[in-house]
């Protein structure tokens, strides 16, 4: 039963294009999906370890840039004599390199800031994304700076040159997004349900008790940061090969904020939270766009964030789960003892 629900959800997601055939709507679905994957990865840190990574878009952007650059090929000029030329790589290899690079940054950031955690972690991650943006903007010889990286090749899958599938159109990209999302979901689900995930939650819940039974704080926080950054990098890489043009604005703080809103609204620390919140916030903008300018839209976002924290502090998914459990509980109490507490 419990194993079947995600499969049913996956089947429903795969069936969506049967209903939605409009290309623009499909595009919205794909970009929303990419954001949901990124939000799922952030949720691993924010929801399960309690560490707010406000520079999460940094991992996403690094994934996008690394993947784009690897697939396009690039040159690094250290001196006039010492030039490192990297020939264009296949997209799947670029994807792998992007994930690894983002994960490496997750490792470094984690190592650096988990010694002190809390407010420091927030500020370090925030700064990290901002530095990444400035590098993308100023390292023009590598990134083209504000001129953007163009003509990024689309995803290709194939055994040989003769037998290749290239993801130019929306529909195959939708399925690819679902595949990456399902993979990310599976990894995160496995992690949080394992002893490693329990260790992460334990640190958030009660750090001194956790250490007193032998849980190494730094180790599991760094592990969470690595996995989280790697998944965000995967989302970024896919984004780059889907839209096929990226510029330094990919690192804007506002994107991290969007992820945070999705997680907080949906329910942090739940597997479904970022998905529910993400679907909600994926569809609000196209609707709002009809009636409000971008500023008003963002004001509404900001207010929603505040309102959610005040009135639905746990988010939608836990609230619904509880209401559901309470209903079933009431039905059952007639004969059985009621559970203690609320």
């Amino acid at each position, binding site marked *: 039963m419990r194993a079947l629900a995600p499969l049913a959800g996956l089947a429903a997601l795969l069936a969506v294009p049967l209903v939605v055939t409009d290309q623009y709507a499909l595009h919205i679905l794909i970009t929303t999906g990419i954001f949901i994957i990124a939000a799922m990865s952030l949720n691993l840190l924010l929801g399960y370890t309690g560490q707010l990574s406000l520079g999460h878009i940094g991992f996403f952007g690094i994934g996008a840039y690394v993947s784009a650059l690897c697939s396009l090929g690039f040159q690094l000029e250290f001196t006039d004599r010492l030039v490192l030329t990297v020939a264009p790589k296949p997209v799947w290899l670029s994807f792998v390199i992007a994930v690894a690079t983002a994960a490496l940054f997750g490792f470094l950031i984690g190592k650096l800031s988990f010694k002190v955690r809390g407010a420091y972690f927030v500020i370090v991650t925030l700064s990290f994304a901002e530095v990444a943006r400035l590098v993308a903007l100023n390292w023009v010889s590598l990134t083209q700076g504000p001129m953007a990286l163009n003509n990024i090749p689309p995803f290709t899958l194939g055994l040989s040159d003769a037998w290749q599938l290239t993801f130019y159109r929306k529909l195959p990209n939708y399925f690819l997004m679902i595949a990456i999302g399902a993979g990310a979901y599976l990894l995160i689900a*496995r992690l949080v349900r394992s002893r490693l995930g329990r260790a992460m939650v*334990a640190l958030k819940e009660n750090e*001194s008790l956790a250490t*007193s*039974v032998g*849980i190494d704080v730094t180790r599991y926080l760094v592990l969470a940061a690595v996995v989280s950054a790697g998944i965000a990098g995967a989302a970024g890489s896919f984004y780059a090969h889907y839209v096929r043009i990226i510029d330094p604005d990919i690192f804007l703080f506002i994107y991290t904020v969007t992820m945070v809103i999705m997680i907080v609204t949906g329910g942090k620390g739940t597997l479904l939270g970022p998905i529910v919140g993400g679907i909600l916030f994926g569809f609000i903008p196209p609707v709002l766009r009809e009636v409000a300018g971008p500023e008003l839209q963002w004001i509404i976002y900001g207010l929603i964030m505040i309102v959610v924290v005040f009135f639905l502090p746990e988010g939608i998914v836990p609230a619904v789960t509880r209401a559901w459990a309470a209903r079933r509980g009431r039905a059952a109490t007639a004969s059985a003892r009621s559970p203690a507490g609320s």
Partner: protein
Amino acid sequence: MSDPAATELLKLDGIGIRFGGLVAIADLSFSVGSGEVVSLIGPNGAGKTTAFNIITGFCAPSHGSISFRGQPLNGLKPHEIAGRGVVRTFQKTSLFDTLTVLENVLTGLHRLGRSGALQVLLGLPSVGAEQRRLCERAAEILDFVGLGGRQDQLANALPYGEQRLLGVAIALAADPALLLLDEPVSGMNATETTSFMAILAKIRARGITTLLVEHDMRMVMEVSDRVVVLNQGRIIASGVPSEIQRHPEVIQAYLGQGRRRARH
């Protein structure tokens, strides 16, 4: 049976700690032999919990050395000390509040798990097998402390006495060779205390050495092999319970006050 010199498990030698200008512990030396139950008693502020914090690595002593099985514990982090089998409970009830009772104990079992990140992410079958094994072990521990029927309740929804027991269950899950219990029966009523003493006897029967901080004298005198009395950061007496009960300085420093603090 209680010959500490024969198999000395824990040894504190000249431990002292200062907080700012305040001397919390002046000079503390004692040892706990394998299989013993030793109680650390003394009036509030005598430095008992501080001693626990030092032994388990939660704070570093200003001077002195601690060894466990002949190896120094100084400078190790709390999780490393737990990793050697020295596990504590907390004076103030300390649980993973929003997790279920079973999850609390599963978390306590962390040290016994072996699956690493790669196995977990790949979803290897060994991970599931280990999970089932640990769940069984957790259920066993809950039965052991008498919380068998409470598995799926949230920790913070348990009544107070059961929360105290869950705290002990979490510590037991971490497979201690030396268990440090910080006022385990504080706040419990007489019946609960009596049944806790039975649990303590079972813990002892499992071969787990216990260092106990407790205010409840009935329990201390009944369960301890030896008692160490602290006052104002120094040991003022130590010996078997019958000696301690007759020791004039102890009566003056502690037992006289203890009556007034009986409720505590």
